[in-house]
């Protein structure tokens, strides 16, 4: 019994004890918000404790020689579907705000580790784009090895996914006509219908809120009244109206972007990010004035009709016109090289190195309103830190180590060193099972879809 108690204590200590301090010396430190520092960075008690030309190593600190190496903040992906268990779309209805991504997360999805190895430390995990108003979204950190609950970014506001254009109208207007066996088409079939679905939903949400306010007032006065029925679909929309839930809108064409901004203004909420927004550059001024941010691809195009006018200059042009821009992946493969994607905004449109790196760090942090915690290397912020063997914007560089909250979650040397052991373990398991598994033709970890 005593042993058990002791063991429990030791285990608890192991889980909750802060990691020993880490001091990286002689490195080129790209702070993002305060220029470049040649020197040291200290990670202590989950936070960045010091940055400077010289930082003394505290007792017990692990000292890493960063000579010739680069340090930057962890990458933030403002649009991903990794670790969503099963489908990402509650595609049966056009307003699916009762459904939630936070409840269907698989912490063992290999895509998490792969993203981590590409430097991604924070992820905005979204519902899909099949519904005009989709499900609830959640911000996660890629704390590989932890439970889904432990990966959640505590304190980050939740979100709601909206979708405009081809995807939400596909169930009402399928490509190539109505396939045999489809008994019922789903409204909407046009962009006009998409607008109507959103306006209608907020009209209902306001009436619902008024009903509750009325009941609350009665209750406060001590009057006896039957409370309105809880409607989880409308609850999420009320949270949007009250600014407690961020709105992320999947969109492509300029007309639907402006439609969304008009509807939001009419309903009385703010669009936090326009996702994809490949034609955002056509209405940069309007977007800048609305205060919405843009989270886009560096250079994807031509995969669907509404992506035909996409240009790789989108991020740079919008940045120049005063819009807060981030680059996202929406894809478990692209997610692994967002750093290389950022370099494209230098090639196409001439952003500076600092501006390019901001697209994958501080800008998405601001869009998700977590910039007080992550997105740059500043004393007091979360110790979400990457170590590279060269400049992160060079195609010849790669991530060597990743820390989240000061804890090392990825180490390339360790990953390579562990391979023989894992291969032996795999062989042993297979021997017990009686042979090689019959692999499916393609096994990707996370399903890939057209955005």
């Amino acid at each position, binding site marked *: 019994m005593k042993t058990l108690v002791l063991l429990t204590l030791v285990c608890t200590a192991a889980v909750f004890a802060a990691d020993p301090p880490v001091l990286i010396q002689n490195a080129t430190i790209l702070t993002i918000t305060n220029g470049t520092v040649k020197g040291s960075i200290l990670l202590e008690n989950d936070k960045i404790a010091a940055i400077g030309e010289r930082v003394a190593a505290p007792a017990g600190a692990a000292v890493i020689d960063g000579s010739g190496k680069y340090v930057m903040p962890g990458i933030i992906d403002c649009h991903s579907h990794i670790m969503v268990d099963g*489908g990402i*779309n509650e*595609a049966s209805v056009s307003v699916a705000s009762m459904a939630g991504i936070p409840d269907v997360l698989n912490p063992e999805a*290999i895509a998490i580790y*792969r993203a981590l190895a590409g430097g991604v430390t924070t992820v905005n995990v979204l519902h*899909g*784009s*099949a*519904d005009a108003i989709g499900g609830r979204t959640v911000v996660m950190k890629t704390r590989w090895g932890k439970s889904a609950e432990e990966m959640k970014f505590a304190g980050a506001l939740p979100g709601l996914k909206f979708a405009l254009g*081809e995807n*939400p*109208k*596909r*169930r009402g207007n*399928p*490509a190539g006509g109505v396939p045999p*066996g*489809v008994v019922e088409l789903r409204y909407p079939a046009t962009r006009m219908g998409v607008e109507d679905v959103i306006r209608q939903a907020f009209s209902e949400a306001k009436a619902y809120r008024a009903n509750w306010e009325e009941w609350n007032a009665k209750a406060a006065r001590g009057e006896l009244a039957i409370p309105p029925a809880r409607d989880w679909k409308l609850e999420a929309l009320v949270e949007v109206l009250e600014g407690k839930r961020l709105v992320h809108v999947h969109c492509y064409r300029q007309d639907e972007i402006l439609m969304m901004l008009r509807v939001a203004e009419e309903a009385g909420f703010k669009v936090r990010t326009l996702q994809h927004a490949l034609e955002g*550059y*056509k209405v*940069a*001024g309007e977007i800048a004035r609305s205060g919405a941010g843009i989270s886009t691809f560096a*250079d*994807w*195009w*031509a*995969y*669907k*009709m509404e*992506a*035909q*006018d996409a*240009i790789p*200059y989108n991020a740079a*042009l919008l940045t120049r016109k005063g819009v807060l821009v981030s680059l996202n992946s929406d*894809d*478990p*493969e692209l997610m692994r*090289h967002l750093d*290389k994607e950022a*370099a*494209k905004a*230098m090639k196409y449109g001439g952003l500076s190195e600092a501006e390019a790196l901001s697209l994958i760090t501080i800008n998405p942090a601001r869009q998700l309103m977590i910039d007080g915690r992550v997105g740059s290397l500043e004393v007091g912020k979360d110790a979400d830190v990457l170590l590279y063997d060269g400049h992160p*914007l060079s*195609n*010849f*560089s*790669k991530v060597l180590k990743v820390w989240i909250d000061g804890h090392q979650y990825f180490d390339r040397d360790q*990953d390579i060193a562990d*391979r023989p052991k894992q291969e032996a373990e795999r062989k042993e398991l297979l021997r017990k099972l009686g042979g090689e598994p*019959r*692999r*499916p*033709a*393609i*096994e990707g970890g996370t*399903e890939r*879809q*057209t*955005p």
Partner: protein
Amino acid sequence: MRWLLILALPAFWLAAADSDAGDSFLLRGGTIHTLSGAPIDNGSVLVRNGKIIGAGKDIAAPKGIKVIEIKGLQVYPGMIDAATEIGLAEVDGVRETLDIREIGRFNPQLVALTAVNPSSEHIPVTRANGITTAATLPQGELISGQVSLIHLDGWTTDEMAVSRTAALHLRIPSIQVSTRPVQPEEGAAPPPAAAPTTFAAAKQNFDKQITELNEFFDSARRYREAKNAKAAGFRPDLKLEAMIPVLEGKEPVLVTAIREREIRDAIAFADKQKIKMILCQAPEAYKVIKEIQQRDIPVILGPTLELPLNEDDPYDRAYTTPAELQKAGIKFAIGTFSGTASLSSRNLPYQAAQAVAFGLPHEEALKAITRNAAEIWGVGDRMGTIEEGKWADLVITDGDPLETKTQIRQLFIKGKAVDLDNKQKQLYEKYLNRP
């Protein structure tokens, strides 16, 4: 008189070409990356009538030739995307714009070039990043058709054509036991569930396909014999006719094989049918190094920036394959297999660069997208390096083309200066100036 006029014309063109036509010039004062030897600092490239006359340090400008000063700039051979769907696909989501897959499993008579759209927006967008040539592939179940090699410039497909029938494309059958449902497009109704396949049924189906494939090759052989023997009752057959260059070893077969077992099946098939094979995509080629090496089989790898095939593969599985092949002395090129959202042909140099980050020597990465691709596609005498006698397919840059921030300054295809403008640049300029 009329004859005289016709004879006189070409002479006139030649004379004009030397003086003012675009395809004769001297590039002077840049760093020349010939890829046939060490880079030449402060070097020149002399081009006449679209062909390279020479590259070196001290090339005097012939009288009357146009001199282009390129001080501080770099010159590379035009990049070659060894596998794409360029010209065959415009918008992935709009089937009317797709000419990639024909019906039927034996289509050697189909030629990709036939369906290449010279007005495709992908062509100017791709070449703006220094890609001058692409192999474009029909896709399908077994034999999908003839791969065409095209220059990314030309008024018509004939002008674009480098090689109409560069290879026959064959996808080796696989034992498909997958029962995992395919995710529908976002918002689309789910497709009817595929019948779950037992391994035995899948194996039976595979055996049947291999047998059919061998029978097809055998019947093509009998056809050829009958044709050569001028046998009585011989009737032409376009499908079998298209197989003759393959059977005679004059044309290679591009064999798409994904998993190790498929690669081994492909090798066994090539051995049996005695065909000249180029392995295609082959993400698990690293498991079959010895056999590929022994037979000296060239490989056109798929994108380096790709997810591992298996969940328990190392995270960098696709990143290190090029370096592993290079160490084993296997000749390989890289194809983007573009035609979908993420796989843009214009990003070909970055696919090569990713392999450099994970161990491939820099020069070998450049060769994988120039010289090796040309040699594998049988046009090494015409392109791939900056050497005398080759077409002047040249890229002038302000830096290393494998680095994203590098800008392409000028591009020549067969000595002709190619416009770097494209739809995307035009939209950018238009909307940058929107009041």
